[in-house]
């Protein structure tokens, strides 16, 4: 039985009711005195030289307070590839590139002003196909580069060439994985204001408040120490907030030029047209196995379309590499990738970060291999599942690992053994089941030189505890999880803790919320800070209770003697006793946690995370063979999360992630034609609605990770990773047709059925 009092409790989110009743203050709600509204003029062309920009008429429009073009900005570049300026002066490289911006007293005037700006373009030949972009005669998108290739990388372990010869069976596929959008409900937003001394405050929905200070500083030449980032309540993010984008420095510069605060918020259409999408990838892959059921080799060639500029999203290939190299025990593997510039929309970070793509390839081919050797796909997976405390050839040091349990549990609950063997068919309706697993970083991911987070815990005179953490709350529940960890350690109720997590001027540094890292990293930082507080409390209580610290415990709001619990003093009284005396001291603890993980070497090897999360999803689908329509009937999602600090949020992450995965699998698709996004509304984009979400049964497997706070590992992205593969495998089980391009629309299914001639 658990000895915890707070860990494992389903404590509701404090912002749930304010969100449901519309009382929460999102970025879009924030207004400050004298605030202006900013708008951006965007390029209608995918590739063109800018010959001339005339802003004079816009400047004369009454109500316009600032108009800026590239000429107004310091000549600085920003972004992961240092390949863009906030406003483009010489040429545009994608539809939607930022050319000029205005700030006006209201949005209508700002919009009208945009229409008064005249831009003369000289269209250039554009390239939209990443393969074509690599040809020597392709139009060069960035003139200071030799080609449109941004990065080529090769990863190898074992001897893949030999292994492909040795393998008893080899399967080969081409995958075409389309663009999807993170599409949070709240569109991109920024509000910038300078105070009288020239210091800048930015209200933002970013996931990286501290790196945003640095990025803004680099893009604009404003010292980072003069930039304060305040995070508003964030209306969803899903990875979008992992980079700084052009609109943020533009908003700041408008505020500087106008001498007034400026707010800039995207319209929904802008959000679809220019905010960063999940990388579309073309992947050619082979995998081999031995007849006895050993997975033997995997090889993948990946073509990643960055779009016109690279963002952190280009790093998704590292994650994909890790999935292909280490999900299941595979003795030989090779991944080769080219990440390429095109005149397409920019791509960026989206939940899963390369893992949904990699998992799709691995898990579809796992099914194909099992079929080729005549083995049940579940059995094949179990034989090759990663094991606890095993290092993969890639240098990934797996510690706790519940993959086997996840696979078994997901399969059992979906009714695998009865259903898989006999997919049913009634009239036009066929049913089938599929399964797919996932491995995801669960103990941070060292993609920056630091993977750290800071935390301060202080206690006031009444025993109220304040936790200052760098960890960002984007709806996932880190605001409660961190509190639960501190409450457990200090033996107090979560209601007695206030969390502050939204202001770089107040909270300690953190690298950002990404890589499912917050519970693990920020949780460990909070635990360290809480332990210092605990030590201080115990030190004072020793005197008051006349017992040594080792004999004392903090529980239920008291410090008490473990063996004689009736001898106790209230928590707050101990705090006051420490304050109100000669030579008194304040109670405050601080913690910094940076895990012992490694950045990947140039060979793509290394232990990128301090621990790894595992999961398996089983899906039952119904396919209408006359319309091609696929309906997921039920999903079972089993995950090894180390320990569920708050099971409700673990379930929430898994359910939300799964629905996002279902969108990726079946309906969501950002349609891009010649660099232009065609579907610009939620209507046209087809995110799943609640009516499309099937019952999702979540299973939490606890493996008590030695490094995690109270044994916890990350779970934020895992739900999304395996869904598309599980659905594709279930469709195959139902109708015997393989669709290797996402999303699997009714039309693709029907075409495939007709081609097969059924």
């Amino acid at each position, binding site marked *: 039985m658990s000895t915890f009092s707070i860990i494992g409790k389903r404590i509701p989110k404090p912002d749930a009711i304010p969100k449901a009743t519309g009382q929460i203050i999102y970025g879009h709600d924030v207004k400050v005195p004298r605030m202006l509204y900013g708008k951006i003029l965007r390029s209608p062309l995918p590739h063109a030289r800018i010959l001339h920009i005339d802003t004079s008429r816009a400047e004369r429009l009454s109500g316009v307070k600032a108009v800026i073009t590239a000429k107004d900005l310091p000549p600085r570049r920003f972004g992961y590839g240092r390949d863009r300026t906030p406003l483009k002066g010489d040429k545009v490289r994608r539809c939607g590139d930022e050319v000029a911006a205005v700030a006006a007293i209201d949005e209508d005037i700002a919009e009208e002003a945009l229409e008064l700006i005249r831009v003369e373009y000289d269209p250039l030949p554009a390239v939209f196909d990443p393969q074509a972009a690599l040809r020597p005669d392709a139009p060069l998108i960035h003139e200071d580069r030799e080609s449109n290739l941004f990065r080529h990388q090769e990863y190898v372990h074992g001897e893949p060439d030999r292994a492909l010869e040795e393998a008893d069976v080899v399967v080969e596929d081409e995958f075409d994985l389309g663009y999807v959008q993170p599409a949070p409900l709240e569109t991109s937003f920024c509000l910038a204001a300078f105070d009288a001394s020239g210091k800048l405050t930015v209200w933002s929905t970013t996931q990286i408040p501290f790196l945003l200070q640095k990025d803004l500083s680099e893009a604009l030449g404003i010292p980072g120490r003069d930039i304060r980032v305040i995070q508003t309540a964030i209306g969803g993010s899903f990875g979008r907030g992992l980079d700084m984008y052009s609109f943020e420095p533009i908003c700041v510069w408008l505020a500087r030029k106008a001498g007034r605060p400026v707010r800039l918020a995207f319209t929904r259409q802008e959000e679809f047209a220019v905010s960063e999408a999940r990388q579309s990838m073309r992947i050619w892959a082979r995998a081999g196995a031995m007849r006895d059921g050993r997975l033997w080799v995997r090889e993948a060639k990946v073509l990643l379309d960055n779009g016109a500029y690279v963002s952190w999203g280009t790093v998704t290939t590292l994650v994909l590499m890790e999935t292909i190299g280490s999900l299941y025990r595979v003795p030989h593997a090779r991944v080769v990738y080219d990440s390429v510039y095109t005149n397409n929309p920019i791509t960026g970070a989206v939940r899963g970060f390369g893992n949904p793509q990699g998992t799709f390839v691995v898990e579809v081919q796992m099914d194909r291999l099992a079929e080729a050797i005549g083995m049940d796909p579940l059995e094949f997976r179990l034989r090759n599942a990663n094991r606890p405390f095993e290092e993969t050839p890639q240098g990934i040091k797996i510690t706790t690992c519940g993959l086997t349990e996840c696979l078994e549990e997901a399969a059992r609950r979906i009714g695998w053994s009865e259903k898989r063997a006999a997919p049913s068919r009634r009239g036009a309706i066929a049913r089938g089941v599929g399964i797919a697993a996932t491995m995801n970083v669960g103990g941070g991911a060292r993609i920056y030189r630091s993977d750290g987070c800071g935390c301060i815990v202080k206690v006031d005179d009444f025993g109220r505890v304040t936790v200052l953490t760098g960890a960002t709350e984007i709806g996932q529940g880190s605001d409660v999880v961190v509190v639960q960890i501190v409450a457990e350690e200090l033996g107090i109720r979560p209601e007695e803790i206030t969390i502050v997590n939204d202001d770089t001027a107040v909270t300690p540094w953190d690298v950002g919320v990404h890589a499912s890292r917050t519970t693990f990293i920020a949780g460990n930082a909070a635990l360290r800070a809480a332990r210092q507080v605990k030590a201080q409390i115990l030190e004072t209580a020793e005197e008051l209770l006349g017992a040594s610290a080792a004999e004392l415990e903090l529980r239920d709001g008291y410090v008490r003697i473990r063996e004689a619990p009736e001898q106790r003093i209230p928590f707050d009284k101990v705090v006051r006793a420490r304050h109100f005396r000669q030579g008194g001291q304040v109670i405050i603890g601080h913690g910094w946690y940076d895990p012992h993980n490694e950045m990947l070497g140039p060979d793509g090897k290394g232990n990128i995370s301090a621990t790894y999360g595992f999961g398996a999803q089983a899906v039952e689908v119904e396919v*209408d063979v006359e319309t091609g329509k696929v309906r997921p009937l039920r999903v079972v999602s089993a995950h090894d999360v180390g320990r569920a600090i708050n099971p409700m949020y673990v379930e929430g992450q898994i359910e939300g992630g799964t629905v996002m995965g279902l969108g990726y699998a079946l309906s969501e698709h950002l349609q891009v034609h010649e660099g232009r996004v065609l579907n610009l509304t939620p209507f046209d984009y087809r995110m799943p609605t609640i009516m499309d979400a099937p019952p999702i049964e979540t299973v939490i497997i606890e493996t008590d990770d030695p490094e995690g706070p109270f044994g916890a590992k990350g779970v934020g992205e895992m739900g999304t990773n395996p869904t598309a593969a599980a659905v594709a495998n279930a469709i195959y089980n139902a109708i015997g047709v393989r669709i290797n391009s996402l999303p699997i629309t009714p039309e693709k299914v029907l075409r495939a059925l007709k081609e097969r001639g059924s």
Partner: protein
Amino acid sequence: MRFFEYYAPKTLDEAIQLLVRHGEGAYPLAGGTDLVTKARYGHLRPRVIVNLKRIPGLNDIAPEEDGGLRLGALVTLAEIARSLLMGERYPLLAQTARKMGSVLIRNLATVGGNLCNAAPSADMAPPLIALGAEAVIVGPRGERRVRLEKFFHGPGQTELRHGELLTAIRLPPPRPRTRGVYLKHIYRQAMDIAIVGVAVLLQFDEQEAIAEDARIVLGAVAPTPLRVPEAESVLIGAPLTEDRRLEAARRAARAARPIDDTYSSAWYRREMVGVLTRRALEHLVSHSPER
């Protein structure tokens, strides 16, 4: 959304005069689920908006002396879905309304707005045409009536001339032994525009063996809702065998003039016309569950 003038007249005359006075750029407003969305997205820029919701008499569902029904243009989809009178006399319409938008949208959206917006995919049009509905139009020169079949001229274009308003839909008395169904093909389970819509209405003979009359109307596969007489004729006067139903479905698919767009390819739309028409007929003939 840009600045516009807003009026909320209390009489029909006043509304018509406002529209006439302000000319192009003046739009009547009903539920606003199409109009406001289009204005937000910049697809149209109203200079003047004339709200019709304060005008009495436009949102009733009223029985008429001949046994028919007068459906006010401002009746919402939610009202159609839950009206007992509708459910009793024209269950096809109540059923169609339930397949549109979401609860929130249905509470706002009106039947008149759906028709006047004249999207090729408008769900109310095929079943209303199948039922033989008539549009009641009032304008500066008084009232006129047009068969709904003739109301649509193209995407976003209708019989209405500037200053004219659709005030009601007139439904002829329900005919005996008549059953209808509207099948709407969408990718998601809700909130989708029809990829294809098929309304089928059959009037059976006393023995329920032969159809005395048949109507097949397609949505989203031509610039306007498309009635398919050549498919209807196969079904009338002879037993509704599987062969006949298949033939009708084939003819409907052939008659469709679909386009490729972001929702679907023309190929897929045509395929779906065939499947949905066949399924609608199966459902009506054999009472098989609707899919």
